[in-house]
C-alpha cells in the first residue's frame, strides 16, 4: 500500500517512512489492511487519519509525512488562548476570529488537503485554507465554539505544528489588496474586449453606413460596459488624483483621471445627444493597460514585503526558559529579558540574540545572511535571533530583548528604508509634478487653440494630449526599480537601511576599506610556531590552551582553537594567575608555566634571542613539513618560506617553563579568503582603492601589499580617517566606505555611502547605509553590480520617457494622434517601464553573475569556495 519502503528487510513506517524497529508493536488497520508504524506517535496519527475517513491522504501524497518529534509538540499551545497573546495575531470581528498560521510539516498537496479537512471539520471552524506555496494556513472560526489551542492541538494530532504568524494583519491586508487589484484588472479587461467589439464597426465603416438605431444601440452598449470600468476599476486613479489635489502636488494620477473623466464624459454626452464621437474603447483599454502596469509594480512590492515578513516570522513566538531548580517553563519570547537562559531544540530557531552557554551545534543562518552552509558554534559564541539549530539542543543566554534583537532590527530597518523616499524619487516626483502642471496647461491651450480652428476636433485632441503623455517612468517605474532591487538585496542578506543607498553606491568613485574586521577576520589565528627541541607543537598548544582556558582574550581564543584543531593532549592547569596586558601564569603537571609577552615570561626587560633561549623557529605559513623539520634541526629555513607579510604583521606570544622560554607562537589576523576577489572586482570596475587603518604600519603594509592596494595609510586615528574622507570628497570623489561598523563608525557616517560587513549583532548601533549580514566580501561586488543595474534601468526608463513624451505630446497637440492611439501608446509605455524595472528581481536566487567570479585569479576563487 505504502509507496515508501526502506532499504532494509524491516518494514517502513506506513506514516513517516522511517524503518520500523519493533515490527508488530505499533500497528494500524486501514481499509482492512494491517500496516506497521514506527512509533506510538505515527500510530496515533495514522489511526486518527483513518478514523476520520481521510485515508485518501496515503494514496495521494508524494512524500512521507514528517517524522514526529514528540519533544516539542505544542508545549506552548495553551499560551495562544491568552487574549493578550492573541491580540498580536488574531483579528476578531463580531465573534468570528481570523488568523494566518505558519504550518510546519506541510510537504505536498496531500498534506495541505489533509490539514484543511482536519481543521475544516472541527467544530466552530468556518473556513480553513492551507497554502502550500507560502506554508501558511488561513483559519476563521466562531470564537464561542472553538478555541485556538484546540485547533492547534487537533492539527498536532495529525502531525502538523501550527505557529502564529506575527504579521497576520499585514498578510490579510496584502491579500485583500491583491484580490481587489485582480478584480479591478479583470473587470477592466473583460469590459475592454467587449467594448472593442461594439466599437469596432464604427472604425471600419464610413459615416452613415450603419443605421442610426443600431449605432445608438452600440453606443449605449459601450456606455453600459464602460460604466463599471470608470466607476470601479479606475477608482484608484480618481482616489489618487484626489489625494494629489489635496496635497496640491499633481502627479501621475491627475492627468490620467482627467483624461478618463473627460473622454468618458464627452462620450456619454455624445451618446445621449446622439452626436459626435464616442471613446469608450479608448477609456477601457487605457484603464486596463494602466492597471496591468500597476499590477506589475504591485508584484514587485509584494515580493519586497514578503521578504521582510519572512524575517519577522523567523523567530519563534515562545521559548523554553530555564529556571534554576525547576523544570523549564515555556514563555512568550517577547517576555525574555537579557540574562535569561533558554533552551533551543533541534530544528528550532533561536528566539533572540544570545550567547551559547552549553552544547555545541550547527546553525543555519541562511535567512539572515544568505549563506547556505550551516555554521558551527560553540559555547561563548554569539548567535543572532532567527538562527536555526540543526544539531543537538543547546542552552543560550539572552543578550537582547526580542524587540532589540538583530532580526527585529533588520526587519525594522528594512521597513524603514522601504517606507523612506530616496532623494532620486523625490527628484523624479518634483519633475513629474511640473510635468503634470505643464501638461494640464498645454491641454487647455490645445483645446482653446483647436476650438478656434476646428471646434469638432477640439475635445478629441485635448484628450489625446492628456492621455498620451506618460510620466510613468518618473512616478511608477523608479519606485518599482528600487523596491525590486531592495528585495533582491535583502534575499542575499544585505539590508539597505537608507532608501538611497543603492543609488549612492552606483555613483561611488572610490572605495575606502578598513582593515581589521573587514579585510581581515578581526580575530587572530595561529600562523607561526617555534619550539625548543624536546617539545612538539601539540603539547605546547595543550599547555598554552590549559593556561588560557578561561580567558576571553582573542589571542587566548586563537590558541584554544589551534589546540582543538590539532588534537592537542588535554592538560589541566591550576593556580592560574593573570597579569593583565602581560600574560598568564599557572601550574601544569607540577611545573610553573608562563604564557605571554617575552618580557613577562622571562621576567626580562627585553625580548630574548630565540637562539639563546634554545628555541628554533619554523612557521606554519610554510608547510607543515617545514615546521617539523625546523623543530628538529636548528633555525628552520621554513621561517623565510612563510610570507614576510604575515610574519611582520604577527603578534608574538611566548611560552616559558620555570623562567625558560620553550616556545613561541605567532598569531596574526588573517586576511579573509575572498578579500582579494573583492579588490580585484573593484579594480576591474575602475574604482579607486584606499586602505586606511588604525593598526601599526607593518601590519597594514603587509595586508596592502598582499592585496595589491597602492594607497594605504596606517596608524590613522578616527579624526585622521575623517580628514582622509573629506579630502577625497573635496576632490569631488564619491566615497564608498566598507568597515565593520564598530571601530569606524565616524568613517562610515562621513562617507557618501557605507557598508558594514558581517556584524548582525551590532546592527542597531550602525551608521552604515547598507549592512551585510553575511561574511562573504564578494557580496559587496554583487551589491555594487545590482546598484549599477538599478541605476542603468532607471536611466533607461527616464530616457525612454523623455524620448516618448518629446515625440508623442507635440504630435498629439497637432492632432495627428487619435485618442485610442494615445491611450495605447501611453499604456504600452507604462508596461514597458514597469516591466523593465521588474528585470531587477529576475536574477534572484541565482549565484553571483559570472563576471564577479571570473575577474580574479583562479586560486582565489578556490579559496573562496573552500570556505
Amino acid at each position: 500500500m505504502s509507496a515508501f519502503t526502506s532499504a532494509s528487510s524491516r518494514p517502513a513506517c506506513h506514516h513517516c517512512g522511517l524503518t520500523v524497529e519493533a515490527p508488530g508493536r505499533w500497528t494500524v488497520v486501514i481499509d482492512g489492511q494491517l500496516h506497521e508504524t514506527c512509533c506510538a506517535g505515527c500510530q496515533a496519527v495514522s489511526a486518527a487519519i483513518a478514523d476520520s475517513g481521510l485515508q485518501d491522504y496515503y494514496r495521494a501524497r508524494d512524500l512521507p509525512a514528517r517524522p514526529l518529534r514528540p519533544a516539542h509538540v505544542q508545549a506552548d499551545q495553551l499560551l495562544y488562548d491568552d487574549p493578550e497573546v492573541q491580540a498580536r495575531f488574531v483579528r476578531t470581528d463580531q465573534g468570528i476570529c481570523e488568523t494566518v498560521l505558519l504550518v510546519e510539516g506541510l510537504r505536498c498537496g496531500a498534506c495541505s488537503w489533509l490539514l484543511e479537512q482536519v481543521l475544516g471539520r472541527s467544530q466552530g471552524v468556518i473556513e480553513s485554507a492551507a497554502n502550500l506555496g507560502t506554508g501558511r494556513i488561513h483559519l476563521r472560526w466562531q470564537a464561542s465554539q472553538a478555541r485556538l489551542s484546540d485547533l492547534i492541538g487537533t492539527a498536532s494530532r495529525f502531525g502538523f505544528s501550527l505557529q502564529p504568524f506575527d504579521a497576520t494583519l499585514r498578510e490579510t491586508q496584502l491579500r485583500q489588496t491583491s484580490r481587489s487589484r485582480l478584480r479591478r484588472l479583470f473587470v477592466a479587461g473583460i469590459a475592454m474586449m467587449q467594448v472593442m467589439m461594439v466599437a469596432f464597426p464604427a472604425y471600419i465603416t464610413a459615416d452613415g453606413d450603419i443605421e442610426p438605431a443600431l449605432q445608438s444601440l452600440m453606443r449605449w452598449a459601450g456606455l453600459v460596459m464602460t460604466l463599471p470600468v470608470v466607476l470601479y476599476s479606475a477608482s484608484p486613479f480618481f482616489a489618487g488624483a484626489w489625494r494629489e489635489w489635496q496635497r496640491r502636488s499633481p502627479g501621475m494620477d491627475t492627468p490620467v483621471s482627467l483624461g478618463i473623466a473627460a473622454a468618458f464624459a464627452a462620450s456619454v454626452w455624445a451618446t445621449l445627444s446622439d452626436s459626435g464621437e464616442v471613446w469608450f474603447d479608448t477609456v477601457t483599454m487605457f484603464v486596463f493597460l494602466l492597471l496591468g502596469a500597476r499590477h506589475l509594480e504591485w508584484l514587485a512590492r509584494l515580493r519586497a514585503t514578503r521578504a521582510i515578513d519572512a524575517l519577522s516570522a523567523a523567530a519563534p513566538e515562545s521559548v523554553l526558559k530555564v529556571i534554576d531548580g525547576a523544570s523549564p517553563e515555556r514563555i512568550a519570547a517577547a517576555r525574555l529579558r537579557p540574562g535569561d537562559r533558554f533552551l533551543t531544540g533541534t530544528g528550532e530557531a533561536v528566539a533572540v540574540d544570545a550567547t551559547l552557554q552549553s552544547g555545541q551545534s550547527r546553525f543555519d543562518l541562511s535567512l539572515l545572511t544568505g549563506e547556505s552552509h550551516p555554521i558551527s558554534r560553540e559555547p561563548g559564541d554569539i548567535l543572532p535571533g532567527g538562527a536555526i539549530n540543526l544539531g543537538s539542543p543547546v542552552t543560550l543566554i539572552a543578550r537582547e530583548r526580542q524587540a532589540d534583537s538583530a532580526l527585529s532590527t533588520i526587519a525594522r530597518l528594512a521597513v524603514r528604508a522601504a517606507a523612506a523616499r530616496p532623494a532620486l524619487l523625490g527628484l523624479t516626483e518634483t519633475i513629474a509634478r511640473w510635468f503634470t502642471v505643464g501638461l494640464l496647461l498645454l491641454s487647455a491651450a490645445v483645446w482653446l487653440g483647436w476650438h478656434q480652428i476646428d471646434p469638432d476636433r477640439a475635445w478629441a485632441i485635448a484628450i489625446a494630449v492628456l492621455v498620451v503623455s506618460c510620466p510613468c517612468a518618473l512616478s511608477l517605474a523608479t519606485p518599482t526599480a528600487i523596491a525590486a532591487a531592495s528585495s533582491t538585496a535583502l534575499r542575499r542578506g544585505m539590508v539597505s537601511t537608507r532608501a538611497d543607498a543603492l543609488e549612492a553606491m552606483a555613483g561611488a568613485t572610490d572605495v575606502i576599506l578598513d582593515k581589521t574586521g573587514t579585510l581581515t577576520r578581526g580575530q587572530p589565528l595561529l600562523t607561526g610556531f617555534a619550539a625548543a627541541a624536546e617539545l612538539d607543537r601539540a603539547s605546547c598548544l595543550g599547555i598554552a590552551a590549559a593556561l588560557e582556558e578561561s580567558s576571553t582574550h582573542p589571542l587566548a581564543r586563537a590558541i584554544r582553537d589551534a589546540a582543538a584543531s590539532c588534537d592537542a593532549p588535554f592538560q589541566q592547569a591550576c593556580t592560574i594567575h593573570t597579569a593583565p596586558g602581560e600574560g598568564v601564569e599557572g601550574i601544569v603537571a607540577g611545573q610553573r608555566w608562563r604564557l605571554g609577552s617575552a618580557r613577562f615570561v622571562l621576567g626580562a626587560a627585553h625580548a630574548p634571542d630565540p637562539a639563546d633561549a634554545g628555541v628554533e623557529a619554523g612557521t606554519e605559513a610554510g608547510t607543515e613539513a617545514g615546521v617539523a623539520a625546523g623543530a628538529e634541526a636548528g633555525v628552520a629555513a621554513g621561517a623565510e618560506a612563510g610570507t614576510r607579510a604575515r610574519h611582520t604583521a604577527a603578534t608574538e606570544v611566548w611560552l616559558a617553563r620555570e623562567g625558560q622560554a620553550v616556545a613561541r607562537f605567532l598569531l596574526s589576523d588573517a586576511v579573509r579568503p575572498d578579500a582579494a576577489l573583492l579588490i580585484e572586482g573593484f579594480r576591474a570596475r575602475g574604482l579607486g582603492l584606499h586602505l586606511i587603518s588604525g593598526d601599526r604600519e607593518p601590519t597594514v603594509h603587509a595586508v596592502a601589499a598582499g592585496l595589491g592596494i597602492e594607497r594605504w595609510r596606517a596608524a590613522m586615528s578616527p579624526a585622521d580617517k575623517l580628514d582622509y574622507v573629506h579630502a577625497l570628497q573635496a576632490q569631488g570623489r564619491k566615497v564608498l566606505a566598507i568597515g565593520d561598523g564598530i571601530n569606524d563608525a565616524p568613517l562610515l557616517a562621513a562617507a557618501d555611502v557605507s557598508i558594514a560587513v558581517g556584524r548582525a549583532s551590532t546592527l542597531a548601533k550602525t551608521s552604515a547605509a547598507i549592512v551585510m549580514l553575511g561574511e562573504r566580501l564578494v557580496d559587496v561586488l554583487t551589491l555594487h553590480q545590482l546598484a549599477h543595474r538599478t541605476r542603468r534601468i532607471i536611466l533607461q526608463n527616464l530616457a525612454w520617457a523623455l524620448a516618448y513624451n518629446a515625440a508623442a505630446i507635440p504630435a498629439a497637440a497637432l492632432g495627428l494622434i487619435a485618442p485610442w492611439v494615445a491611450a495605447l501608446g501611453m499604456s504600452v509605455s507604462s508596461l514597458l517601464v514597469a516591466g523593465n524595472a521588474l528585470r531587477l528581481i529576475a536574477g534572484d536566487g541565482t549565484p553571483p553573475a559570472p563576471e564577479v567570479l571570473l575577474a580574479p585569479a583562479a586560486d582565489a576563487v578556490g579559496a573562496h569556495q573552500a570556505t
Partner: protein
Amino acid sequence: MEALFLLIPLSIAIIAGATWLFLSMVDKGQFDDLDSPAHQILTDDDRPAGGA
C-alpha cells in the same frame, strides 16, 4: 440586423454573469495560491484502482 438588438443586450448579460463568477472566485481565494491545487486534484474521492 434586428437580431443585434437582442444579441447585444444578451452579450452584456453574459459578461455580467462571467464577471460576477470571476469576482466570486477571487473572493473565495482561488487566485491566492496557484501551486497547491495542482496537487489537490490527486485527492479526489474517486479511488484509483491500484492505490499509490
